[in-house]
């Protein structure tokens, strides 16, 4: 099936600085796609390219098989929710929301009806007569959404729209965004640097770093099976233990590290034995009571035990891995009550819970 939108091998430079390099992104109809990356990763540039605010230096941008690169901003079938909303402060909420229809020359009565409808949709039914300055941050957010959806675009671009909200409001808006997207059936391309937000909202996440795509996939897949060190550390906590690939048997790998021989599994093409690799294992997947006689696994000494409410975070070290702190998360129940700094434990995990990551040469 043809994707709704396809960025094919897109590159972009600012002067001598290459900000995007070989970006390939497809967006499917009705999809909630998040582009996740730290600041400076190029994620906003991708959004601006889709919106038409930036041109491209290489590759192509196709919409339903049609080349978009020569189509000006105002004729692209997308609308954008800007980071600071960009609501016109000299217009009422209703005027802001109806703007897209007005510039298309729609009749006043139709605009009024549609504005009322859309304001209802975003839960601002009675506030059309207000000015943006008279509204709270969350309300403005909804106005910006209403303004973006009124023209029934095929795709809505959202540029970190929740970053200005406080934690509680943000959680509420996340639920709202997600339900709105499902109700409308419009594709959302959402930009954020917040991995929790990305995981909570998205059907699919594309992780970008330094102008390149690191990895893409469903949130759970990215979380459980990161393929690059960046993805592994950017999405949630991860213990990354360096070593050398000793043996490979199907997906199952054995890695030699300074602290001992460890298990991991690999997705996709595997590196050759002897390559430098990392073993990525989540704190919640590390067992503290592994069989000391097992051939694989490592010993460690408890450095600190921190109580975090529902969880306890245990920090350990192994003298053979200088500078590395191994984190283990446990439910704060009786199972860890006896653990004190200085205690020696044996660490282990199921091979399926540890991802083998290639280290870029």
């Amino acid at each position, binding site marked *: 099936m043809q994707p709704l939108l396809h960025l094919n091998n897109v590159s972009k430079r600012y002067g001598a600085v290459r900000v995007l390099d070989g970006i390939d992104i497809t967006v499917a109809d009705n999809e909630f796609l998040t582009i996740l990356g730290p600041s400076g990763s190029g994620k906003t540039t991708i959004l601006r390219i889709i*919106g*038409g*605010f930036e041109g491209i230096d290489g590759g192509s941008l196709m919409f339903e098989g049609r080349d978009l690169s020569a189509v*000006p*901003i*105002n*004729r692209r079938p*997308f*609308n*954008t929710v*800007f980071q*600071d909303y*960009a609501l*016109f*402060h*000299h217009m009422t909420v209703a005027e802001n929301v109806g*703007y*897209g229809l*007005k*510039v*298309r020359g729609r009749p006043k009565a139709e605009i009024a009806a549609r504005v009322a409808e859309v304001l209802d949709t975003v839960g601002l039914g009675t506030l059309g007569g207000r*000015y*943006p*300055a008279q509204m709270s941050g969350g309300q403005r957010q909804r106005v910006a959404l209403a*303004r973006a959806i009124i*023209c029934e675009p095929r795709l809505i671009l959202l540029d970190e729209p929740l970053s200005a909200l406080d934690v509680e409001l943000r959680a509420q808006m996340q639920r709202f965004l997600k339900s709105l997207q499902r109700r409308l059936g419009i594709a959302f391309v959402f930009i954020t640097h917040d991995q929790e937000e990305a995981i909570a909202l998205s059907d699919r996440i594309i992780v970008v770093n330094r102008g390149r795509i690191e990895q893409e996939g469903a949130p759970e897949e990215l979380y459980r099976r990161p393929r690059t060190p960046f993805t592994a550390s950017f999405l949630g906590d991860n213990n990354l233990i360096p070593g050398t690939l000793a043996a490979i048997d199907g997906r199952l790998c054995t890695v030699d590290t300074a602290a001992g021989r460890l298990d991991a599994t690999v997705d996709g093409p595997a590196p050759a034995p002897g390559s430098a690799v990392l073993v990525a294992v989540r704190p919640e997947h590390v067992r503290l009571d592994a069989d000391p006689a097992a051939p694989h696994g490592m010993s460690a000494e408890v450095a600190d035990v921190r109580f975090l409410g529902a969880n306890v975070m245990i920090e350990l070290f192994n003298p053979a891995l200088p500078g590395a702190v191994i984190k283990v998360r446990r439910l704060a129940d009786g199972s860890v009550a006896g653990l004190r700094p200085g205690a020696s434990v044996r660490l282990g995990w199921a091979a399926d819970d540890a991802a083998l990551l290639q280290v870029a040469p």
Partner: protein
Amino acid sequence: MNTSLRRDRQDLLRAGLGHALNLGLPLLFVVIPILSFVVVSFWTLQDGQILLIPTLANYRAFFTEGSYLPVYLQTVGLSLQVTLVNVALSTAIALFIFRRTPRMRFLILMSFMLPLFMSYIIKVYSIRSILGQRGLLNEAMLGLGLIDQPIEALLFSRTAIFIALAVLYLPYAILPIYLALDRIPANYLAASADLGATPMQTLRAVVLPLGRPGIAAGAVFTFILTFGDFVTPQMVGGTQGFTFGRIVFSQFGLALNWPLGSALAVILLATTLLAVALAGLSLRREHVR
């Protein structure tokens, strides 16, 4: 306790002094001079002597005698026309600057502000030497063969007044308009285009409405400066350059008719205040972001 009382008193004194300055300086430099000629405007002139007898005769004279009212109305008309031309031109220039890159903006803006650093009278003289029958413009056009006789109507005409006042007062209009445009967040323009507006629609619906405070300020500056100008129109407008400001000025020369001059000056001031008020009124709908 005694010391703290003294300190309180000192603080009070200092605060009082501060307030006195806050009120006193404008009072000293603005209100009192204006009040003084408001007072004089109600005095009587008899046989060349100013008598402290209150009268409305000076104001009555404005409406009934001589050419005061007709010249006043003509000057209002002229000022409105100059304002219209000037604001249209300044808005276009400000928009032009606004669309450049930030560094170019500053350079272009500065070059338009440059005339502000020149003496007023030198500017008028240079305009005159450019527009004169043997002036730069005519000589150049003659030299290029565009015309075979100097254009006489360039200088000492209404056209010349428009050109001169536009040149003189353009910076006063460009600056506030540009500053207003400069305050428009860049993503408003992006948002407007994103919502489907053409550049012209964005100009009409977003840029010009948001530039309105600047445009109003530019219009008020131009109107006030033009309305009160008693030198430029006279110097470049020839026999067409007689303005209300000139009449006010003439009462303070040999005529020594200070009461009438003051009354006319009060009317001039009232007119400029009215212009400011009208501009303020037109901005009522402006909302804070």
